C-alpha cells in the first residue's frame, strides 16, 4: 500500500505530480498553498503596494515642488508621507523579498516545496488583509499621520486622538504575522529541506543570505510588535507606559522601534545582496570570488546591524560614551559590507561580464548603494549627524541606501528571473530605457536632496518660504521624481509585454549553474519531478543533462505514492537524507484562519472587544483543525525513496521540521520577552516619576505558587513524553492530565494577581508589571491548549512510541513557559522588593 507507483513515462509522472501538487482552477486557486503560486502572489501584491507608495511619493513631490504650494493641507500631507514610508517599508520591501525567497528557495535548494506551505499561505492572507486595512484607512482619510516610526508622544492619545495611529499599530502588527511566519518557514526550510548531499558549504549563496535574514527577523521584529501592543494598550485602555507624567518615557518607544528599525534596513538589503551574489557570477561567467568570505560578511552584517540602533537617537541626549559605542558599531558594519562589494567587483574583474539589462541594473546598484553607504558613514559620525539630523540630507541618504540597495537589485532580479516565472523572453529591449529613466530620475531626485538638507530644509514640513532658497532644488527633485515614475511605468509595460507576448524561452537561458534552472519553465507546482542528489555548489554547470534526468524521474522520489506530497528533509550540516517530509495538500484553511484573525484585528481597531474575543477563539479553533493532515493512527515505518534508500516519515522522526519551527518561534518569543524586561528596567532607571506610588504587595504567595505550577508543568510534560516514547500512552495521558491542571492553576493564579495588582493606568511600573503578568498568563493558556490537543491525540490513537512529535513540541513550550514565567514573576517580585526597600531606606 505504501509502495511507490512508478509511472510509465515522464509525461505521465508530470501529469500525476501536477494533479497532486496543483490547485483547482477558478475559486479553487484560493486554496493554493504551493510555494510557486504563493511566491508569485507575494511579488505581484508587493508591486501593487509599491505603486501605491510611489503615487504617494509623487503627491509629496507635488506638494513641496515649490514654496507655498496649495496642493494639500498639513493634515493630508502628514498622512501622505507617513503612508509612503509605511507602505514602502512594510508592504513593499519586506513582502517583495519574501516573495522572491518563497518562489526561489525550494528550487535553488533542489527540493519540491518549503517546509510549511499552509503557514506560507496564511502569511500571505495576513499580509494582504493587514495591508488592505491601511489602504482602506487612507481612502477614507483616516490613515496614520505621525510618521512611519510613530514616535510618542505625537502618536499618543492626547496628540493623536483619532483612529489614525491605531490603524498603524494594529494593521502593521497584523502584517508582521506574515513576516514572522515567513522567517520561520524560510529558516527551517534552508536548514532542513534541501536536496540530499547539499551540505552547508554547497548551499547557494542566496540561501545563506536568507538564513541570516530570517534569524534577524525573528530577533528584530518582536521588539516592534511588543512596542505596538504596549502603545495600543496605552491608547485603548489608558495603560501608563510611554507617558512621562505617569512614570513612562517616550524614549522607550524609540528604543523598541529602532531595535527593530535599524536591523530592518539590513533585513531589506541582505536579500538583495543575495540576489546580487547570485546574478553577478552568472553574468561574469565564473563562480563567486571568496564564497566563504561573503558568507562570513553576511553573518557579520546580520549581527552588527543590531548594534546600531541608537545611531538613530544621537540627538535625544545620550551620554558621549554611549554614543561612542554605537558610533563604533556603525563604522564596523562598513567592513563586511565592503568585503561583499569587493567580492562582487573582483568576480566581475576576473570574469567576462555580459552587459545586458540585469547587469545594467547591478551597475546602477553599485553606483547608488556605494554613495548611500558613504553618506551612511558620514551620519555615523556623531558631530556630523547632529548637524544634519532630521534634514533632507538624511532623506537623501536612506533613499540612496534603500533604493540603491534594494530596488535596483530587485529590478535586476526581476529581469533575470522573469524567464523562469513566465517561460518567456523580453521584447523590444525596453529594459535599457527603463534603466536610464529610473537611474537618471533617481539621482536627479535624491542627489539634490543632500544639498537641500545641507541648506537646512527639515524633513516632513508641508510647505516653506521662498526666502530660504530651496525652491530650485525642490523643483528639480520633483521633476526627477516624475522621470523616475515614467521609468517604473515603462517597467510594468515591459513585464506585461514579456509575460503576455514574449517569445518562449528554453531552460537555463543565462547558462547558470544553480538548481532553479534545472526545473521546467515556467515553474510547475511540484518544481522537480524527482529530487537531485547534490555533489557540488554548481551542480547544473557540472551536469548540464541534469534537468532531463530529473524530469525523467531518475532522481529520488521520482514516483507518486498514495497521492502524498513528498519531499526529503536532511541533516542540516552534512546534507545526508534523514526524513520523508509529507506536506499538506491544497486547502482553504489558511484563508479561513486569516479571515478569523482579521476579524480579531479589525474588532480591536473598532474597539468591539467581544467580537475580538470571538475572532481569537475562531482562529484558535481553526488552527486546531490544521493538525488533522499529519494525524495517523498507525506507524508507517521506513519507506523507500529510490536509489535503494529508505527513510522514516517526519512524524515518526526525532526532530521534525515542525519541532525546529517551534524552537525558532520561541527564539522570537524570547526576543519579545527580553524587550519587555528591558522596558521595565529602562523605565525604572531612566524615566521620571519613580518610585511608583503603589507597588505590588500581598501577591507573593500566589506568584510563588504560580512559579511552582509552571515548573511542575514542565516536569510533567517530560514524564508524559517519556511514557509515550515507551509506548505507554495510557500513562502519558495521566501525566498530561496533571500537566493541564498545572497550567489551568497558573492561569487562575495570575488572573487573581492581576485583579489585585496596582492599577496599570496609574503608573508605568504597574503597566509593565501587568504586561509581564499577561505575557506569562497567555503562555500558560497556550500550554493548556497544547495539553488538551495531546489529550485528544492520545485518545484517538494518534500517539505511539514512534509518533510522539506532538508531545515533543508541547515539551518545548512547557519548558520555555516555565523559564520565562519564573524569570518574569521573579523580576516582578524582585523589583517590588527593591523599590519597597529603597522606600523604607529613604
Amino acid at each position: 500500500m505504501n509502495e511507490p507507483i512508478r509511472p510509465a513515462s515522464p509525461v505521465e509522472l508530470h501529469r500525476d505530480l501536477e494533479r497532486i501538487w496543483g490547485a483547482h482552477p477558478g475559486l479553487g486557486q484560493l486554496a493554493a498553498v504551493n510555494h510557486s503560486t504563493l511566491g508569485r502572489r507575494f511579488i505581484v501584491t508587493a508591486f501593487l503596494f509599491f505603486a501605491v507608495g510611489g503615487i504617494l511619493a509623487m503627491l509629496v513631490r507635488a506638494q513641496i515642488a515649490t514654496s507655498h504650494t496649495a496642493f494639500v493641507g498639513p493634515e493630508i500631507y502628514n498622512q501622505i508621507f507617513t503612508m509612503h514610508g509605511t507602505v514602502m517599508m512594510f508592504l513593499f520591501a519586506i513582502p517583495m523579498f519574501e516573495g522572491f525567497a518563497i518562489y526561489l528557495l525550494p528550487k535553488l535548494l533542489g527540493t519540491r516545496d518549503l517546509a510549511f506551505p499552509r503557514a506560507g499561505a496564511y502569511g500571505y492572507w495576513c499580509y494582504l488583509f493587514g495591508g488592505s486595512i491601511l489602504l482602506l484607512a487612507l481612502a477614507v482619510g483616516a490613515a496614520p499621520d505621525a510618521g512611519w516610526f510613530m514616535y510618542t508622544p505625537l502618536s499618543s492619545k492626547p496628540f493623536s486622538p483619532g483612529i489614525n495611529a491605531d490603524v498603524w499599530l494594529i494593521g502593521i502588527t497584523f502584517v508582521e504575522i506574515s513576516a514572522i511566519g515567513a522567517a520561520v518557514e524560510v529558516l527551517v526550510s534552508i536548514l532542513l529541506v534541501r536536496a540530499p548531499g547539499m551540505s552547508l558549504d554547497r548551499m547557494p549563496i542566496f540561501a545563506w543570505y536568507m538564513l541570516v535574514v530570517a534569524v534577524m527577523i525573528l530577533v528584530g521584529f518582536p521588539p516592534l510588535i511588543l512596542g505596538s501592543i504596549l502603545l495600543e494598550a496605552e491608547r485603548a485602555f489608558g495603560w501608563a507606559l510611554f507617558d512621562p507624567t505617569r512614570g513612562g518615557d517616550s524614549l522607550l518607544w524609540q528604543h523598541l522601534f529602532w531595535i527593530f528599525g535599524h536591523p530592518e534596513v539590513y533585513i531589506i538589503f541582505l536579500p538583495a545582496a543575495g540576489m546580487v551574489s547570485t546574478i553577478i557570477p552568472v553574468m561574469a561567467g565564473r563562480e563567486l570570488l571568496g564564497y566563504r568570505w561573503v558568507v562570513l560578511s553576511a553573518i557579520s552584517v546580520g549581527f552588527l546591524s543590531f548594534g546600531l540602533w541608537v545611531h538613530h537617537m544621537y540627538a535625544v541626549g545620550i551620554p558621549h560614551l554611549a554614543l561612542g559605542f554605537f558610533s563604533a558599531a556603525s563604522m564596523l558594519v562598513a567592513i563586511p559590507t565592503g568585503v561583499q562589494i569587493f567580492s562582487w567587483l573582483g568576480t566581475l574583474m576576473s570574469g567576462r561580464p555580459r552587459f545586458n539589462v540585469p547587469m545594467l541594473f547591478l551597475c546602477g546598484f553599485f553606483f547608488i548603494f556605494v554613495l548611500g553607504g558613504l553618506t551612511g558613514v558620514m551620519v555615523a559620525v556623531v558631530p556630523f549627524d547632529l548637524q544634519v539630523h532630521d534634514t533632507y540630507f538624511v532623506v537623501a541618504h536612506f533613499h540612496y541606501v534603500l533604493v540603491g540597495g534594494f530596488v535596483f537589485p530587485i529590478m535586476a532580479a526581476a529581469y533575470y528571473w522573469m524567464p523562469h516565472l513566465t517561460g518567456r523572453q523580453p521584447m523590444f529591449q525596453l529594459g535599457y530605457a527603463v534603466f536610464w529613466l529610473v537611474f537618471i530620475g533617481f539621482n536627479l531626485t535624491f542627489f539634490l536632496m543632500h544639498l537641500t538638507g545641507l541648506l537646512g530644509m527639515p524633513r516632513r514640513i508641508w510647505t516653506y518660504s521662498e526666502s530660504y532658497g530651496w525652491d530650485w532644488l525642490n523643483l528639480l527633485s520633483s521633476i526627477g521624481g516624475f522621470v523616475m515614475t515614467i521609468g517604473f511605468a515603462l517597467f510594468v509595460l515591459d513585464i506585461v509585454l514579456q509575460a503576455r507576448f514574449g517569445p518562449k524561452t528554453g531552460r537555463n537561458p543565462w547558462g547558470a549553474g544553480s538548481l532553479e534552472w534545472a526545473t521546467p519553465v515556467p515553474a510547475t507546482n511540484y518544481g522537480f519531478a524527482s529530487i537531485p542528489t547534490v555533489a557540488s555548489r554548481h551542480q547544473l554547470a557540472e551536469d548540464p543533462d541534469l534537468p532531463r534526468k530529473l524530469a525523467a524521474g531518475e532522481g529520488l522520489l521520482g514516483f507518486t505514492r498514495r497521492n502524498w506530497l513528498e519531499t526529503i528533509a536532511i541533516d542540516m550540516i552534512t546534507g545526508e537524507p534523514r526524513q520523508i517530509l509529507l506536506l499538506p495538500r491544497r486547502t482553504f484553511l489558511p484563508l479561513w484562519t486569516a479571515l478569523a484573525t482579521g476579524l480579531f484585528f479589525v474588532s480591536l481597531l473598532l474597539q468591539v472587544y467581544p467580537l475580538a474575543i470571538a475572532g481569537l477563539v475562531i482562529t484558535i479553533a481553526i488552527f486546531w483543525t490544521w493538525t488533522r493532515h499529519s494525524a495517523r493512527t498507525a506507524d508507517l515505518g521506513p519507506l523507500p525513496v529510490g536509489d535503494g534508500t529508505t527513510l522514516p516519515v517526519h512524524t515518526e522522526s526525532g526532530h521534525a521540521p515542525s519541532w525546529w519551527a517551534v524552537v525558532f518561534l520561541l527564539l522570537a518569543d524570547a526576543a519579545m520577552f527580553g524587550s519587555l524586561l528591558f522596558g521595565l528596567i529602562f523605565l525604572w532607571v531612566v524615566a521620571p516619576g519613580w518610585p511608583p506610588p503603589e507597588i505590588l504587595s500581598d501577591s507573593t504567595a500566589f506568584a510563588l505558587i504560580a512559579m511552582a505550577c509552571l515548573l511542575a508543568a514542565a516536569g510533567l510534560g517530560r514524564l508524559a513524553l517519556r511514557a509515550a516514547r515507551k509506548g505507554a500512552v495510557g500513562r502519558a495521558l495521566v501525566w498530561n492530565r496533571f500537566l493541564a491542571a498545572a497550567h489551568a492553576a497558573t492561569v487562575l493564579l495570575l488572573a487573581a494577581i492581576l485583579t489585585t495588582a496596582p492599577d496599570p493606568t496609574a503608573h508605568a511600573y504597574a503597566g509593565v508589571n501587568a504586561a509581564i503578568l499577561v505575557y506569562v498568563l497567555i503562555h500558560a493558556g497556550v500550554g493548556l491548549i497544547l495539553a488538551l490537543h495531546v489529550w485528544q491525540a492520545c485518545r484517538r490513537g494518534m500517539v505511539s512510541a514512534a509518533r510522539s512529535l506532538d508531545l515533543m513540541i508541547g515539551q518545548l513550550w512547557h519548558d520555555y513557559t516555565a523559564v520565562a514565567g519564573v524569570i518574569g514573576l521573579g523580576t516582578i517580585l524582585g523589583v517590588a522588593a527593591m523599590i519597597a526597600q529603597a522606600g523604607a531606606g529613604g
Partner: protein
Amino acid sequence: MTLATRPAILLVIALGYTLWGGALVALYGVLSLGCVFGWEEVMLGPLTLQRGLLLLLWLLSVLVIALLAWQTWGWLQAARADGQPPPLPRFTLWLAAACSIAAAGATLFMGLPILGASACI
C-alpha cells in the same frame, strides 16, 4: 565530545557575535546605571568607579571572545592536520573560527571610546 559537533557548530558560529551583542548591551547598561547612581563621582585610584567597571567589563568580554576564537581556530587546525576526514565539513569549522575572530576584533574596537569619551555628559 567537544562543541564542534553537529548541530552545535551552528551555535558556535553564532556564539562570538552573540557575546559581542551581550557585551554591547552590558556596557550600555552599566554606563546608564552608573550615571544614575553616581559611580562617576566615586574614585578608585586614578579611575572612577564607572570607568573602572566599564574597562573591566570590556576587557573581560574581549578576553572571553578571544578565548573562543583560540578554541575554534584550534579545531580548524586539528581538522587540517589530522589527515582524516574531519567530523564536520571544514567550511563550518572555518566559519566558526572566522566569526569568533571577527567578533573579538569588533568587541575590541567598540570599547575604545571607554579610554577617552566623557561618561555621563
